[in-house]
């Protein structure tokens, strides 16, 4: 079901990641201000963008689930959020490394971009206990979808609020004037975003395939157990006088 077209997608992902790494280290020029440390930008920013888009995509899939009642959309939403949280962890760690190298601190609490991303990340960390504290599968899917929609709507609002805030130290990469990236850096950045997006879609399909196979296996096992129970001789019925 989900494994259709997986192989070419996986190959495209590997090629895109290799191309982006090659561009980062052999093509993109050194930043005049930050020097070699700026290379972290090509992994940190695409990861952040794809993670935030993944959260929003999870919300859109959750809307689809509530509209159609099809539980497969809830599963898609769950996997998108799960992957975005993993990428979010990467964003926080690589961001801290970059901050230490260029600002001399692992974390700055007065920097709106950092704190807002942490808020979004922590918000989505609540998704797991919420989802797995509900045993009934239908209610679990419904409640999780409502959360995914509300949190998904919060992501662009949060992003807009941060853009409106005055940046103290965090650089602006994408702006209405096209940002301040020269041609080679821009190309490298775009290839990195494409590679990260392909990686996200590939891993999303991979996890969905595994989850779908696991669910089908469970249902097969249940059906076989039922059949075994039906074919087993009935237990003698004890009657009371």
């Amino acid at each position, binding site marked *: 079901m989900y494994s259709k077209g997986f192989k070419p997608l996986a190959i495209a992902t590997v090629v895109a990641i290799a191309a982006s790494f090659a561009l980062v280290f052999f093509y993109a020029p050194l930043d005049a201000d930050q020097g070699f*440390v700026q290379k972290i930008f090509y992994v940190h920013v695409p990861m952040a963008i794809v993670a935030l888009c993944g959260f929003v995509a999870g919300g859109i899939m959750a809307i689809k689930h509530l509209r159609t009642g099809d539980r497969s959309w809830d599963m898609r939403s769950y996997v998108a959020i799960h992957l975005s949280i993993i990428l979010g962890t990467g964003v926080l760690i690589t961001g801290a490394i970059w901050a230490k190298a260029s600002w001399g601190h692992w974390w700055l609490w007065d920097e709106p971009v950092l704190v807002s991303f942490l808020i979004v990340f922590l918000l989505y960390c609540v998704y797991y206990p919420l989802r797995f504290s509900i045993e009934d599968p239908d209610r679990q899917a419904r409640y999780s979808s409502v959360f995914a929609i509300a949190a998904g709507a919060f992501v662009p609002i949060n992003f807009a609020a941060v853009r409106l805030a005055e940046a103290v130290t965090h650089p602006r990469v994408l702006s209405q004037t096209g940002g301040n990236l020269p041609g080679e850096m821009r190309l490298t950045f775009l290839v990195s975003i494409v590679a990260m997006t392909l990686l996200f879609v590939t891993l999303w399909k*991979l996890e969905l395939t595994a989850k779908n196979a696991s669910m089908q*296996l469970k249902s*097969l*096992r249940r059906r*076989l157990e039922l059949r075994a129970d039906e074919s087993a001789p009935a237990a003698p019925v004890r009657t009371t006088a």
Partner: protein
Amino acid sequence: MPALPLDEAGKYVAGAYLVFLTLIVIYVAIIGAKVSRIDRELGELVELTDEEKAGRHEL
């Protein structure tokens, strides 16, 4: 803050890219373990149904 010299900056850059690669490798390893568990359980089910079939034929 002035730009770090290449040898010092290299450690940070390597660290950041290693974090990214490690996350992906751990994730793929976990999914791989799940898939191999599914494969094993599927094998058990096939064996079970084969035994059931053989039992029916004997009857």
